[in-house]
């Protein structure tokens, strides 16, 4: 085990989430426990409806749990106000969505710049970081284009650049290759694995695609809201 794994970045304790559908209560997550060390590339796999996106939403502080808690760098997310959570998402967490979720009225450059504007970075700093990040994902030439002019793979590269531009501690990816053909999906996962290795960014990827697990340092399986092999499957990733 590498030195990076010594310090847990994320700790999940007995996390549950229930949804009410009229009189029916759906238990989306049932007492999940998990630890994610700094520098990890964790793949959470499971079938549709297994609770993997719910788990990702709770880790990313975009939903509140019914019980249990998520600790990021030792800080309990349930104790933070709405404003503090927004700040945390901006500073420390990056998101990559299945549907790319770029803002269509902004150019590639502006989409990547957006989190830095929220962060209050100077114009010069923004320019440097955005161009560095676009270079990193191979889209430096397309900075002025609008998302409508990009292919699916390019969309996802922009989303990755946007997720990483604030240099977050944790990046959460929800089915990042699901809307892409297998070759492009593979490229995206290779990019994720490279950034994880080179920039030491912690990634948590949820997927129902078993191929994605090939890129994981560790992988866990989720079914019916329960983790089946909590934090045990570790593999070498290069």
């Amino acid at each position, binding site marked *: 085990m590498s030195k990076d794994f010594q310090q847990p970045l994320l700790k999940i304790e007995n996390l549950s989430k229930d949804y009410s559908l009229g009189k029916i209560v759906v238990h989306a997550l049932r007492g999940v426990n998990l630890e994610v060390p700094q520098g990890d590339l964790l793949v959470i796999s499971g079938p549709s409806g297994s609770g993997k996106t719910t788990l990702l939403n709770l880790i990313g502080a975009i939903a509140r749990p019914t019980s249990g808690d998520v600790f990021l760098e030792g800080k309990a997310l349930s104790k933070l106000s709405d404003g503090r959570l927004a700040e945390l*998402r901006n500073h420390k967490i990056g998101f990559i969505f299945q549907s790319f979720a770029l803002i269509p*009225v902004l150019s590639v450059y502006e989409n990547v710049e957006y989190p830095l504007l929220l962060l209050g970075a100077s114009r010069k700093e923004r320019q440097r970081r955005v161009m560095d990040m676009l270079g990193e994902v191979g889209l430096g030439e397309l900075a002025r284009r609008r998302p409508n002019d990009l292919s699916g793979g390019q969309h996802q590269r922009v989303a990755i650049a946007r997720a990483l531009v604030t240099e977050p501690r944790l990046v959460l990816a929800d089915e990042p290759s699901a809307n892409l053909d297998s070759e492009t999906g593979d490229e995206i996962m290779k990019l994720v694995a490279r950034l994880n290795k080179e920039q030491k960014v912690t990634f948590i990827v949820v997927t129902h695609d078993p191929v994605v697990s090939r890129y994981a340092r560790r992988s866990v399986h989720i079914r019916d809201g329960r983790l089946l092999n909590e934090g045990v499957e570790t593999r070498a990733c290069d």
Partner: protein
Amino acid sequence: MLVIKLALRNLLRNRRRTILSLLLIAFGIAALFLFRGYGVDVAAMARESAIRQVWHLRIATEAFWDGERYGYDYLIAPEVLAGVREILAEDPQVVSYTTGLSLMGLLGTEEKGTTTFLAIGAEPGNPVPLPEIKEGRPLKDGDLGAMLITQDLARELGLQPGDNLVVKARTVDGLYHAANAEVAGIYHVPGLGGNMVIAPVSFNQMMRGTDRISTIAVKLADHGATEEVALRVQRALEENDLAGLRVKTWQELADFHHQLVLFLNLIFGFIGLVIFVLVFFSVLGALTMAFFERIREVGTVRAIGTRRHQVFGMFLSEGVLLGLFSGLLGVALGWGIGSLINVAGITYPGPGGQPVPLGIALGLDVAWAPFLLALVATTISAIYPAYRAAKLEIASALRFV
């Protein structure tokens, strides 16, 4: 800046919808601008007419203002008038002043019969109201038995300039007095007609057997200074032991002008309300539609750290920008149409069949209210969609299809 940039881009995203909203609001604002411009023009004409008739200030005794017009007490004695002249001469806003004394009685000729009249006493060199002479000549200093009569009276008695008249009236003491007079000219003053005669104040004094006058009309350099000068003159009168005199402004005397302005403001308010409601619902519809189209986007920007108040600001800014652009466009449109109307020289029949020019007042004092209405209506209509966007739960918004 980020909020404004996004709001602007989002407005441009659905151009057809934005242009339709923009045009709808702009036409409403242009209509409101034109009506307000017309109202301001009509009110200004009425104000000019009122000031032409009464001047800016009138000074008279309390008894005169209270309607107790008998005996000598309600009149202003020459020594009191001298004190008033000194006060008015010292005020820098006073351009001119003139004395007046009215006279009522009968006038006519042996051949053509008699009729009642009301004679406004005016200083020949400085008459108020200033008559427009249609035939004959104006009054001049030294005229004693000369009169200006209306076109109505000239027609009724078949009089022409140069004709002689017999005038009968009561003196202040209640005695009857008759004198000869001459028709100097036939005049027209908008709003004055019938048996209204303008005679030299000295003639009226002679007929009423007094050297006193009833009113002093004061003309000012600036309309806007009316209230301020009225207060200043009143204070000076009181300080000079002339407390029996009271100053009234043209606004107090010209009730018609006051009623007209009130009426125009009521209509403007009603039209404004109708346009406000139209703008409100059209923008509310457009922005609510935009909100539903962008629910996932709201989820995205919230997920990457945008705060609720910033999302609120984005949607609100769209309303503000729409109001700003449509307000400016509406005012520009109204200004352009107003200029064309003014250049076209359109007239409509006024009181007495006189053609009145259809004028539209143009200026920032006309533009601000319609512009503000556009801005306020669009901003208020953006509050609801902005509130809903800000309250969205991120995870639900991201799932929205």
